[in-house]
């Protein structure tokens, strides 16, 4: 079969197909406005919006990469990226097989998942305490 006879199902991304890109970017702008005016954060679930093939990439391209790129190792990988628009973050969660399981646009000064969590801090405190106790015991035994 010559390559010209192969039926191609790839969808042409004409302007008419990108009907959800602009409204979404406008929503991001409104969310930034709200953040500036009231300090309130907004989270947009990218998986809840009907997007044509290529539209998610288009949105990510427009938002671009900014100064912060963080990788978290929490139940699989997560990426937290500040876009070129400060205050607009892309949070992507992956599973163990590196497949995207959820993706959000967060409009906030700091995505919650980046902050150390109170419960984890408390657990860390007692863990560190135990480690120091062990150390002390070992030192006493050694001397």
């Amino acid at each position: 079969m010559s390559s010209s006879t192969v039926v191609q199902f790839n969808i042409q991304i004409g302007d008419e197909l990108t009907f959800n890109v602009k409204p979404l970017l406008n929503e991001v702008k409104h969310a930034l406005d709200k953040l500036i005016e009231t300090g309130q954060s907004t989270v947009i679930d990218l998986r809840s919006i009907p997007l044509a093939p290529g539209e998610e990439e288009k949105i990510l391209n427009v938002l671009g990469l900014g100064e912060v790129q963080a990788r978290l190792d929490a139940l699989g990988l997560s990426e937290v990226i500040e876009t070129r628009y400060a205050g607009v973050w892309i949070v992507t969660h992956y599973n163990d097989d590196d497949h995207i399981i959820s993706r959000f646009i967060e409009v906030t000064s700091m995505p919650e998942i980046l902050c150390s969590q109170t419960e984890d801090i408390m657990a860390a405190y007692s863990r560190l305490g135990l480690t120091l106790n062990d150390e002390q015991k070992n030192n006493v035994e050694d001397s």
Partner: protein
Amino acid sequence: MINDSNRDKTLGETLREQGISRRSFLKFCATTASMMALSPAMIPKIAHALENARRPSVIWLSFQECTGCTESLTRAHTTTIESLIFDFISLDYHHTLQAASGHAAEQARETAMEENYGKYLLIVDGSIPMDNPGYSTIAGISNYDMLMDTAKGAAAIVAVGTCAAYGGIPHAKPNPTGAVSVGDLIKDKPIINVPGCPPIPVVITGTLMQFLTFGSLPELDHIGRPKAFYGKSIHDRCYRRPFYDKGLFAETFDDEGAKKGWCLYKLGCKGPTTYNACATTKWNDGTSFPIEAGHPCLGCSEPDFWDGGSFYKALSMPTENITRTVIYTAAGAAAAGVALGAMNRHKKNQAVATHNRTSIDDLKK
């Protein structure tokens, strides 16, 4: 399967014991919210509810089915998250997945029922044959007897897949086994229908999580489906919709229109009368969904989809008038969509009465 030491613990306690950090838990909650099709604003509420949720007992019965629904669920792409859910629920009986068989398996079901009477969640896939109980039995017990016996002590029933929800393919004409749905037999228990052939994996887990998280039934539509997933038609959320609105249709599977990704309505797309989450949730790790791959929607999450006429015949053509209204006004577009939906439903009901076969000519047209 049953781990009694975990039974009385909350999910928060169980996760902490497993060394799962709060940060991981937040990721779990964010993904769960997305899975449940809930607004991200609900994440703190979900976190709070999940933190305090107790481990429920789940009994899963499989009747006349192809195991596609269980396959769909166990191939779910959010492996880490799903395995957490499975660790959390106590799946006390599932004859395809459990190691035990025969009397030991039935014993597990009876023990789970006794210990959790009135509280366990019953999941059913497959339809129930009413013509001859011998068509489908488990450990010598007919599907009907097992369903009625197990349903008695259930807090709620989830009918997974179009077969359990509406009879599905076994129920298709001429229905040789006299197949009926769970809802046809049980009237005194809350039933959540999660149809699809098979249902999208995250729609199954999302529905379960909603019940487990909030301990209440999700809001259901007129045929028992959770509105969060089945509240919008495929057509409402289809990315090919702008072509439909402009009257640009593929006429065959390989014409210019098909290659340009135009609307598949004339190739038999049932998107306008089908309510499901495919257009946003998508399939295979969120890769795409049938319409994105160039094939019309078959309407698999609707009752009698198998008898709704040929998969490749448009049930009714958009008329000149409808197309024009759609082009002129956005409000018109919505109204035309409703009109078309009603027309299609009528045609579909007619088609159901007379079982149609798909011919080679249908595919060539």
